[in-house]
């Protein structure tokens, strides 16, 4: 490995070091550190406007950073030649908050888009793979030839997840996967993410507000406030934290009720 490599174990999929991101004279991230381990589901929480989405977009390379380092699969992103970076970027899939399905294409064509552009496959194989992904995310086969505008909110999320999984990525970014879903749909989606994570061996980075998701599928939680990660660890660490925002988040009216319920279950 080159000199830019970080001395971390191979299990760290994404490492962010001393990240600074700002717009104008406002700093959104100020010296942020974060690690994402292989095979885990990391829940990322933070108040509205604290920059959860900005961090995701910075890691994905959609927002420029002022300083700091981002290591993808152990390699410094800035030091990589463009082609290798493209290759690394194909090892992750992204589920955007609104789904971001291409509106002019059917669900099947949406899923085949990354295959068609990045791989050389026969049409038959692409059709089979697309249908397999559609089944994998729990959509009915007849959804394949529908356009995004004909789908319900939950179906859009599932179709978008199928597209994110099109190239069989190792790492999946989920931006508020359960927002806009009813509690039943949200619970089903959580379960789906959990199942896929187990069967496909995925690493999941999930930005969420949904306390239920945090309790049910996240192995670890990282909390963002004041431009840095104020706490990271399993739920117990979060509940034990003294930070006022975390106290309010996990012991507030909604969080308190859930932590009580989960304590009673165990």
């Amino acid at each position, binding site marked *: *490995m080159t000199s830019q*490599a970080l001395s971390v174990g*191979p299990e760290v999929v994404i490492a962010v070091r001393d990240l600074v991101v700002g717009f104008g004279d406002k700093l959104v991230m100020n010296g942020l550190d974060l690690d994402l381990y292989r095979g885990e589901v990391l829940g990322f929480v933070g108040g509205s406007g604290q920059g959860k989405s900005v961090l995701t977009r910075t890691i994905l390379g959609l927002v420029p950073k002022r300083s700091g380092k981002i290591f993808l*699969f*152990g*390699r410094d992103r800035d030091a990589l030649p463009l082609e*290798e970076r493209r*290759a*690394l970027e*194909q*090892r992750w899939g992204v589920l955007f908050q609104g789904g971001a399905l291409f*509106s*002019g294409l059917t669900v099947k064509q949406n899923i085949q888009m990354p*295959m068609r552009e990045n*791989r*050389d*496959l*026969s049409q038959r*194989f692409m*059709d*089979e*793979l697309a*249908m*397999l*992904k559609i089944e*994998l995310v729990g959509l009915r*086969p*007849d959804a*394949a*030839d529908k356009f995004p*505008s004909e789908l319900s909110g939950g179906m859009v999320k599932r179709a978008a997840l199928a597209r994110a999984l099109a*190239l*069989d990525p190792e790492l999946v970014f989920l931006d508020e996967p359960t927002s806009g879903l009813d509690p039943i749909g949200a619970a089903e989606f959580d379960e789906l993410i959990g199942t896929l994570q*187990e*069967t*496909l*061996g995925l690493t999941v980075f999930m930005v969420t507000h949904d306390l239920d998701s945090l309790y049910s599928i996240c192995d670890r939680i990282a909390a963002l406030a004041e431009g840095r990660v104020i706490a990271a660890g399993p739920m117990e660490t979060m509940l034990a934290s003294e930070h006022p925002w975390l106290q309010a988040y996990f012991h507030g009216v909604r969080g308190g009720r859930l932590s009580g319920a989960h304590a009673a279950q165990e």
Partner: protein
Amino acid sequence: MRQAAVDRPEVRSVRAGDALRFSLLGDWTLVASRLLENSASAIVEEGRSARFAIIDLGGVSRLDTAGAWLINRARQELAEAGVGVVIEHARPEHDILLEEAHFRLFEAPLRPRTNPVVDFLAELGRSVYTAGREFYLGLGFFGEFVSVLGLILGRPTTFRVTSLVYHIESIGLGSIPIIALINLLVGAIVAQQGIFQLRRFGASSYTVELIGILVLRELGVLLTSIMIAGRSGSAITAEIGSMKMREEIDALRVMGLSPIEVLIVPRVLALIVALPMLTFVADMSALFGGLFITWTYGGISPAAFLSLLQEAIKLNTFMVGIIKAPFMALVIGVIASMDGLATSGSAESLGRQVTSSVVKSIFMVIVMDGLFAVFFASIDY
């Protein structure tokens, strides 16, 4: 450190009696693209000759759903050819994937067979029907607009003057530079062509008459209307359409306000006020463009131009253009607002409505101009 480089998928076969043993090596992942597909079909090709086939996954370093699917498909295809298949040395995580991607047939969606001629006729019929329906709805909307206008006249204190002034500014004042510029150019072009063509008959002084009548009667108002349909008609459709998408129109309705009164009347009235004024600007700049070119290119002095112009045109020549303007404005405004209100939830629908609004209003402006030409000719104005 984990290597990004991928081992190519590979198949090695060993024959033992009537059994074939396939050892799979390398990464059986989608990264290998066509090579992965070819490796899988190689198994099927070769396996057909045997009675038994063993697929040994012991040497596979990585497997994903695509690889698992192909292995399952190969197994299925061999089984159909009467070959017994056993999968060996699959690791537990590979077993999960093989189970998840077990072979199944995906039935192709039913596509009803259609006759292209019937399709074409059906499409034609549908578009005729839609056009007729849109005209009918347009008349209905126009009626609603007039009745709301009547209501406002009954209680003039509720009229939204601020809104009207704002829209006159954005439609009228904002369009002056571009309207003046294109009409200046068109006036100049007509003058140049007039001089160039009429010179052969020694009649270049008639160019002034040509410019005067053509610009004042037709070109000024027509170009202005087309420009405004593109510039302000599209803006009105987009504004009202996006308000419809964000449920702002519904919010107005539940507050007991009429969207036509609040949003559409000020915009259409602003168009009706602004368009004649813009037509005047257009006339003047086109005449100026003509004057400039006849002077520099045709050698007709500005004083001669003005006196020739005075002989060629009368007040009614100018009035014909100006009278048409408010009617053009009404057509543009009504079509633009109606298309805006017809927007449904999606962003594509907004785009379609804006396009249709501009196309329809430009078409209707030209149709109206033709009707006016017939009308003015028959009353000899």
